[in-house]
């Protein structure tokens, strides 16, 4: 991104001054190096988002921002329905409520080591992953609607997990006001065989070791110690969410709010029939994602206890990064109910936030940043300052630095798997090409992204995780 087009407000805050139709400025949080590497499209897309009605304070981009669909990936924007605010299908994304869930095991790396290869095989066998994989749970029409209303709460009630899991999931594991009747028959049909599946692309299941603790006060509250074993699951709402995104993007392009600077920004007023239908369908898809990650958690627990009996896997946290949620924020001194879009960005609530469970009130909300199969992932914690910076938001991952086509030209899947195995990272996959496309070198430096998120004040680093096993979606 061209530095000349930005006003530098502080070391890590860059401003696109409002011009033309922009109602608010665009704000990018990043260091100078990340800004230089950032796609020019991020500036263009933030500028467009800033023109939408009802937008509050600013259109924000996180340190990992890159070219998305209408909204940049790594974008945050909040809209006030009282001021004609809108909801955008592109602002949420196709993989509605895609997110990361971290499980804390009661194992250390030394205890896992003798069973590592067996565990990799067991996880690969039990968790359906990749194109064309199907789950073992088939839902009838009525049960599908129950799942879409109940989310992870539905899954726990059916025996996939324990009630304690729910307090460590946003909104207690269930998006309220979901409307399965606003989800198309096609979307439900697409989900018929996909419950409890990981998906493909950048989705993964990793067994990781805590390699470094940054915040020795917060880490014990999250149960984290050096060399502990953590499991991270990255996936979303599967076929149902993809179809809801597809269906409503088309309707919003045809019938949505006008005039928009770019068709990708198709949206509808929150207080319109279309806006309300999308919200109902999006929340149903959110519940599908939460139920899906809950079922996968159950399968992971089964794989662990089969090999290492009595292993406890506690849910550390589950955070979604493709969302639109109703939240209360202070704007110009007024407390308002806003619809906060986070596309490739997570919440980052600081200590004392009313939506946090009692066990996290003293520290804040865990922010889970996924890396790649060969590099680090991070657990950060939300800050109070993040509220003023970006409606309590932080980044979600490393972000690609190279296209899939470039990656497959540069790397070979089989060779990468062998190289990673030599470094102690066991990859399990059905697709060598998929591994090449997701090569660690095709992503930005996640260390830099996590560090800048902390330096900008969006969230604070607690722990760095390194992969030991990766089941590739």
């Amino acid at each position, binding site marked *: 991104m061209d530095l000349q087009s930005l006003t530098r407000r502080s070391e890590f805050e860059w401003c696109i001054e409002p011009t033309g139709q922009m109602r608010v400025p665009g704000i990018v949080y990043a260091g100078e190096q990340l800004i230089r590497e950032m796609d020019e499209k991020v500036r263009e897309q933030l500028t467009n988002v800033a023109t939408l009605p009802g937008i509050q304070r600013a259109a924000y981009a996180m340190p990992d921002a890159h070219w998305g669909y209408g909204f940049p990936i790594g974008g945050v924007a909040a809209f006030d329905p009282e001021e004609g605010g809108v909801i955008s299908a592109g602002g949420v994304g196709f993989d509605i409520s895609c997110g990361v869930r971290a499980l804390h095991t009661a194992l250390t790396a030394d205890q896992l080591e003798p069973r590592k290869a067996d565990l990799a095989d067991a996880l690969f066998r039990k968790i359906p992953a990749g*194109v*064309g994989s199907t789950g073992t749970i088939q839902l009838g029409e009525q049960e599908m609607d129950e799942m879409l209303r109940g989310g992870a709460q539905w899954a726990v009630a059916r025996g996939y997990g324990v009630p304690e899991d729910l307090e460590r999931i946003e909104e207690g594991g269930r998006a309220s006001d979901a409307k399965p009747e606003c989800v198309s028959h096609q979307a439900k049909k697409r989900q018929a065989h996909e419950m409890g599946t990981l998906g493909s692309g950048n989705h993964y299941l990793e067994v990781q070791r805590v390699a470094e603790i940054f915040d020795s006060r917060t880490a014990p509250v999250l149960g984290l110690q050096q060399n502990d074993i953590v499991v991270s699951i990255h996936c979303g709402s599967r076929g149902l969410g993809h179809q809801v995104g*597809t269906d409503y993007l088309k309707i919003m392009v*045809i019938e949505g709010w006008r005039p928009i600077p770019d*068709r990708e920004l198709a949206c509808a007023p929150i207080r319109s029939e279309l806006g309300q239908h999308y919200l109902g369908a999006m929340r149903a898809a959110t519940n599908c994602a939460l139920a899906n990650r809950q079922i996968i958690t159950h399968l992971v627990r089964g794989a662990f206890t089969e090999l290492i009996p009595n292993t406890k896997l506690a849910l550390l946290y589950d955070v979604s990064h493709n969302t639109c949620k109703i939240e209360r924020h202070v704007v110009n001194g007024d407390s308002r109910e806003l619809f906060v879009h986070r596309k490739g960005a997570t919440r980052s609530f600081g200590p004392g936030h009313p939506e946090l469970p009692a066990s996290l009130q003293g520290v804040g909300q865990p922010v889970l940043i996924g890396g790649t199969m060969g590099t680090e992932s991070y657990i950060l914690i939300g800050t109070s300052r993040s509220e003023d910076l970006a409606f309590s938001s932080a980044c979600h991952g490393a972000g690609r630095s190279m*296209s899939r086509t470039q990656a497959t030209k540069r790397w070979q899947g089989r060779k990468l798997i062998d190289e990673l195995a030599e470094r102690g990272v066991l990859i399990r996959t059905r697709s060598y090409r998929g591994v090449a496309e997701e090569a660690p070198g095709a992503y930005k430096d996640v260390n830099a992204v996590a560090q800048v998120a902390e330096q900008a004040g969006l969230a604070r680093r607690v722990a760095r995780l390194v992969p030991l096993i990766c089941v590739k979606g």
Partner: protein
Amino acid sequence: MLSVRNTAGWEHFSHGSDIGVRGFGPSIEEAFEQAAVALTAVVADVSRIRESETVEVRCDAPDLELLFVSWLNTIIYEMAVRTMLFKKFRVVTSGCSLTGTLVGEKVDPERHQVAVEAKGATVTALRVHREQDGQWLAQCVVDV
């Protein structure tokens, strides 16, 4: 009068995190058909897919660009619900409506060298138009 190049083909183009599909040919139908091959090539190795099953589809939209997106999304839907991959496509358009024939087989992850599933065709970098040499071009970014 424009001279029409009698070639058809497809290619991928770069997008930050996803991938663009582009089809071109002497008619709009061929451009749509070729873009569909490009879509399959995002997911798997097209040359390894056998032609054992045929699926008929229909879609419509208010304009040709949205018709193209609907066409690709219809294929993505059929791939997902039938767990199939398609290698041959036949399109007949009538204004902003389309009937299509998809030919392929059930997914075999190892034989087909599947890489990634397509979540949806987007309106990003969406273009359907006739170029100066008479060739039709149809393209958009696919979310994977």
